[in-house]
């Protein structure tokens, strides 16, 4: 069976993600994305795989749904009842290429 193809998105938030609160932030973010994507959430199935700093992180999404995920992230303006802005800066097939010029 073919391994699922994935896309990695470099994402920046306007708010700091404090150390120790990552899990809470992740759950809130996934809920916010699901609210925007609706029944198409499963196509992207997003997961945060790496934190770069307090504002930037790498979001892994399925290749089938990554374009919808980028559009959905534009609509996410509140996570855990806190106002936020989410910017998708880059996308790549590997984390290595994604982070090449990120820092």
């Amino acid at each position: 069976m073919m391994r699922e193809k994935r896309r990695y998105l470099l994402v920046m938030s306007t708010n700091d993600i404090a150390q120790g609160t990552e899990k809470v932030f992740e759950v809130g973010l996934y809920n916010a994305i699901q609210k925007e994507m609706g029944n198409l959430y499963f196509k992207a199935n997003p997961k945060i795989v790496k934190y770069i700093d307090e504002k930037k992180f790498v979001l892994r999404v399925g290749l089938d749904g990554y374009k919808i995920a980028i559009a959905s992230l534009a609509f996410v303006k509140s996570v855990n009842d806190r106002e936020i802005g989410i910017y998708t800066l880059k996308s790549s097939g590997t984390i290595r290429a994604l982070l090449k010029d990120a820092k």
Partner: protein
Amino acid sequence: MSYLDGTSSKQSRDEYVEFYDIAHRGAVENRINEALGFKRIIEIGSDINASYSPADSIEGSIFIGKGEALRYAAKRQPKAICITDSRIDRSLIATMRDKDIVLCFGFNDLIQSTGLRRQAMLYMSGRLFAHAKRKGINITFASLARQKNMLLSYMQLIELAKLIGASEDHVRESIGKTTPGLIE
């Protein structure tokens, strides 16, 4: 594919083309344009003026409005018009085509809307886009953000424009060439 400056790979395709966005002055922070992938974010209030009423000074500005005000505004030669309710006005579109006025789709209101209101806006924006494209109007896309968290990266701007029916190449050309043309 390689370029003369030595960069290569598919990622360079985006870096090679320069993109522009338009936002209100309070939304733009120092050097945020670089992080979002734009060569420049054109600031309303400093780089270009915005008009909201036919009583304002319209020539050379972006007129943001709806309804009858748009027809009056179009006669006074703004650089661009943003139709906030996305309703198709055939005579307005004809005037815009004759006077070479750009139609600007701003996504700030769309992002702030929710539920069925957002779906209605997407539907009507799509209809307006299709009509304008068929009539040969110059079209561009912008965030028109009023706050920092309403800004969009170039990737998000492209994907939102595709939601209303634009092709990726059209959007890239619009935000790469048509948008900077507004301040020339």
